[in-house]
């Protein structure tokens, strides 16, 4: 199946008809919504936050951020960046609550250092892997993007980028670029090995401890934090302990949690 990035650059691919069709397709709406919810869960925000949405398009992802109820730490305020004027026009028609810029993430992130509490990017980063012009290479654009993103986030902030890597090589090129820019990085895959696999790059800025804690307890997590090698060995937090700690926290908040048993934190395999 052909990938849209191979056909045209994003600003031309997402023209008026495509942007309208994309936004009104209920299957797409559902998929984008569920991926945004997943990204939000990974961001773990506890109070109303300022969020950058990279490749915000017509605001399908942003609308989810605006709709987070107070009990879950929302609603959040978001600022979107998108390279397609047609997508932004659809967002205006939909009266989304976020502010938006017409901007190319491959040129950087034009905000002051420490502006955002968090960032999300849903189904956009793969577009950065195709060079727009002969002037700049894909690694050059990724570098500019991740360096800009890193600086624009406050210390302790997080970013989650769901994207569609073409192959393992491209997945590595993207996460390597993020790590080089200074992020702690972990890759999470939902539905690994299937056609519907969803890849989330979870990025942290100056968070003490390592990324394993954030993605622990989730199946199919592949931690790819190169900084870790420089740390002392054997510091990896025990997954079971981490889960038990999280259960205590949830219980403290009055949530109902499952009893801790010998199965807690064990890897489950579904055998056919």
């Amino acid at each position, binding site marked *: 199946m052909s990938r849209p990035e191979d056909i045209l650059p994003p600003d031309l691919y997402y023209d008026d008809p495509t942007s309208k069709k994309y936004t009104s397709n209920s299957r797409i709406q559902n998929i984008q919504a569920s991926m945004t919810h997943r990204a939000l869960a990974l961001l773990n925000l506890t*109070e*109303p*936050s*300022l969020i950058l949405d990279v490749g915000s398009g017509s605001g399908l992802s942003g609308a989810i951020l605006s709709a987070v109820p*107070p009990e879950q730490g929302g*609603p*959040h*305020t978001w*600022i979107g*960046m998108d*390279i397609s004027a047609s997508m*932004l026009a659809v967002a*205006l028609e939909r009266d989304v*609550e976020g*502010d*938006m*810029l*017409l*901007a*190319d993430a491959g*040129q*950087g992130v*034009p*905000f*002051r250092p*420490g*502006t955002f*509490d968090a960032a999300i990017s849903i189904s956009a980063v793969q577009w950065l892997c195709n060079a727009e*012009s002969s*002037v*700049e290479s894909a690694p050059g654009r990724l570098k*500019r993007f991740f360096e800009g993103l890193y600086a624009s986030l*406050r210390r302790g902030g997080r970013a989650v980028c769901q994207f569609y890597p073409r192959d393992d090589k491209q997945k590595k090129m993207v996460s390597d670029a993020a790590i080089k820019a200074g992020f702690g990085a972990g890759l999470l895959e939902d539905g690994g090995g299937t056609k519907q696999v969803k890849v989330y790059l979870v990025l942290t800025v100056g968070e003490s401890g390592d990324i394993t804690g954030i993605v622990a307890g989730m199946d199919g997590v592949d931690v790819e934090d190169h900084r870790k090698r420089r740390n002392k060995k054997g510091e990896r937090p025990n997954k079971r302990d981490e889960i038990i700690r999280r259960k205590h926290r949830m219980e*403290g908040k009055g949530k109902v949690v499952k009893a801790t048993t010998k199965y807690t934190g064990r890897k489950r395999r579904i055998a056919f």
Partner: protein
Amino acid sequence: MKILTLTFLTCARKSCKPEPTSYPLHPTSAELEIIPVDFNPLFLRALLPRLDWPTLRILCEAFGLPGLQEEAPEEDALFLQPEEGGAMEDVEVQGEKGKEVVEDVEKKGEEETREASQLAKDLHHLLLETTMQEGKLVCGCCGHEYAVKEGIANFLLPAHLV
């Protein structure tokens, strides 16, 4: 574009970023419009520490909006001070189970009953509801003009400026 966004935007050119004159961008021939947004005082509280107050004052002046107080407000100024007694009494009764619970409930109770101040409402109106619909944003360093149309600023740079 909300004034909130303007207080964080810089010139997109790499060579301008380290220069202090590339921030804030200067609005010219601006048309403002008020677009109502739900009031969210907890967002303001989270935002306040990183708000550049002198810049916000400069922007108000550039737009011809009423002046702001000189000093950046403290977080407490966003809320009316709670009255003594009252709501807190219930909390004591509930908290027989242990000290931790008492503290938790007290904190929660405080958050829910604290009423936002006029200053919080004014800031909300200024930062989130006041938007620049048309005009230009000019970099004080390189002079590049970013056009704003229908509330959306165009930050695409021609290749030779990246």
